[in-house]
């Protein structure tokens, strides 16, 4: 887009606005540079009327110069409402951001910072806001640059400004890659890039934190589930041991673990220290019994007994209990060495009566306090010396049969 110039102010050689106008003796005006170039090159004539003319025939036309300096023109581009000095019109049109609209009739809008050199075009509102956010740096740089250009133009300078000027000059496109400025510029660009990536990283972290919170909740829920499962498992185990006690058919294998430590406790406190098996039934809907080990009173033998217990089916059974009881200490490697003692129940013994006693000072309330068995079942020396202990455990087998 070229400005329309009043013919009075147009140089016929460059067709531009007169710059340092010169008046010829034949009454024509040209730019000083244009007419001197012409007269140097060609025959000494006026380019318009071809009358003889020499450099001596030229005079500076300061009247016209002043007149031109006072001329202001409005930019003809639609959308641009800038008024510019006539002499600078071409410069303005060269950089006017509204040129594009004029030429293409393009629907694209310009960045609001186009006046200071941002060339981006924006299609819609969201793109505009995006552009404004993303290009803050560039816009600030452009603003600073145009501000300093402006200040510079009016010759206002001081130390700080020249520094700022220097800083903005780093942004000029034509830069020597080897110069310090270029290096600084590169560093600055690098900083901008890094800041950008920093922002992105922050966003990533925020996202990860959110994810973590979700994960934490998941974990909490899972641990809750695990707890529930543990409780359920314990209940199931109880149920299983109950079932086992019912389905044992009067046979109980007692794996007595941590034997040496238990032995030590028994020796130290022979009266207080007694070990019991869980209760088990002689058959389903049978008698409930349990086994017991403790130190004999001479402190040299293990005692092994059977206690009748209060069972769920006591009402339906015949009392006193009648049957065989077999107690065995199993040798882990040699069956021949196992100790096996078999007894017949006795109708007279208190021990086979129905367990209807209260808890009169017994450790296990639902248990007949009278036991039946051997106070000297096996000597401790024999247990220790004949290899009954394996993995710090002894195995006792109790069989209770009804007759």
């Amino acid at each position: 887009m070229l400005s329309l110039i009043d013919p009075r102010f147009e140089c016929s050689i460059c067709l531009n606005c007169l710059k340092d106008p010169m008046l010829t003796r034949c009454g024509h005006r040209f730019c000083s540079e244009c007419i001197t170039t012409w007269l140097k090159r060609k025959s000494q004539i006026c380019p318009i009327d071809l009358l003889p003319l020499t450099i001596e025939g030229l005079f500076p036309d300061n009247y016209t110069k002043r007149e031109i300096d006072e001329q202001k023109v409005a930019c003809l581009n639609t959308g641009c409402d800038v008024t510019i000095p006539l002499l600078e019109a071409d410069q303005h049109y060269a950089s006017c951001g509204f040129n594009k609209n004029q030429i293409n009739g393009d629907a694209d809008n310009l960045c609001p910072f186009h006046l200071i050199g941002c060339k981006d075009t924006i299609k819609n509102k969201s793109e505009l806001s995006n552009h404004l956010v993303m290009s803050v740096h560039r816009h600030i740089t452009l603003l600073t640059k145009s501000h300093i250009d402006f200040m510079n133009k009016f010759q206002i300078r001081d130390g700080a400004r020249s520094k700022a000027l220097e800083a903005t000059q780093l942004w000029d496109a034509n830069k020597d890659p080897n110069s310090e400025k270029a290096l600084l510029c590169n560093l600055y660009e690098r900083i901008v890039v890094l800041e950008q990536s920093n922002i992105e990283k922050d966003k990533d972290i925020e996202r990860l934190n959110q994810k973590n919170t979700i994960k934490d909740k998941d974990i909490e829920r899972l641990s809750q589930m695990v707890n529930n499962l543990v409780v359920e498992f314990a209940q199931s185990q109880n149920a299983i041991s109950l079932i086992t006690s019912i389905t044992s058919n009067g046979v109980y294998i007692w794996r007595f673990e941590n034997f040496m430590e238990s032995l030590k406790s028994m020796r130290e406190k022979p009266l207080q220290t007694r070990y019991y098996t869980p209760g088990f039934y002689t058959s389903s809907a049978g008698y409930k019994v349990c086994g017991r080990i403790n130190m004999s009173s001479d402190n040299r033998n293990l005692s092994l007994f059977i206690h009748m217990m209060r069972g769920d089916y006591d009402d339906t059974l015949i009392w006193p209990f009648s049957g065989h009881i077999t107690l065995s200490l199993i040798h882990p490697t040699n069956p021949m060495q196992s100790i096996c003692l078999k007894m017949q129940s006795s109708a007279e013994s208190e021990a086979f009566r129905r367990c209807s006693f209260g808890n009169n000072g017994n450790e296990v309330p639902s248990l007949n306090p009278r036991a039946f068995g051997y106070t000297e079942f096996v000597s401790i020396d024999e247990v220790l010396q004949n290899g009954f202990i394996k993995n710090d455990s002894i195995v006792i087998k109790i069989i209770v049969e009804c007759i």
Partner: protein
Amino acid sequence: MNNIATQRIKREFKEVIKSEELAKCSIKVDLIGDSYTELKGEIAGPPDTPYEGGTFFLEIKVPETYPFNPPKVRFMTKIWHPNISSVTGAICLDILKDQWAAAMTLRTVLLSLQALMAAAEPDDPQDAVVAKQYKDYPEIFAKTASHWTNVYAGGPNKNTDFDTKIQRLIDMGIERDQARGALSTYNWDLERATEQLFS
């Protein structure tokens, strides 16, 4: 190209386009490519001349020293005119040579050429053969120029007599443009043209 030449051509372009000659389709300038160094001009044959109704294309080369030196202009459309070479299209016009002035523009050049077409200057010829015919046989010149306009510039006046003579030479194995050139040169005397072609 230096800045002033480009700047000026850009401005002139606007001048040519806005000028009223365009409305009459009499002169026109087009860009060739993106540079302003080569342009294509277009002139309508002036009315009441043998060139009327024809469209003549010009090759315009803008030197770097423009406007201090004239543009180099040549007819791309073949034309029969005393001041224009019938072979190369070179133009003999003072303003394109020593009478150039920096205030002149492409528009004034094209208008000058249009004027030249309307008023030839046989005393300062580019093509001596044409100039001689122009002076000695103005009627034949007018017919020949009109015929060339018809053939090369899309003019309206068909000359069946000339076409027949050209066809005769073509039948003898002569190329069409060469045949037309020879016949034009010898004032459409078939015998002399043949003689010249086969000598």
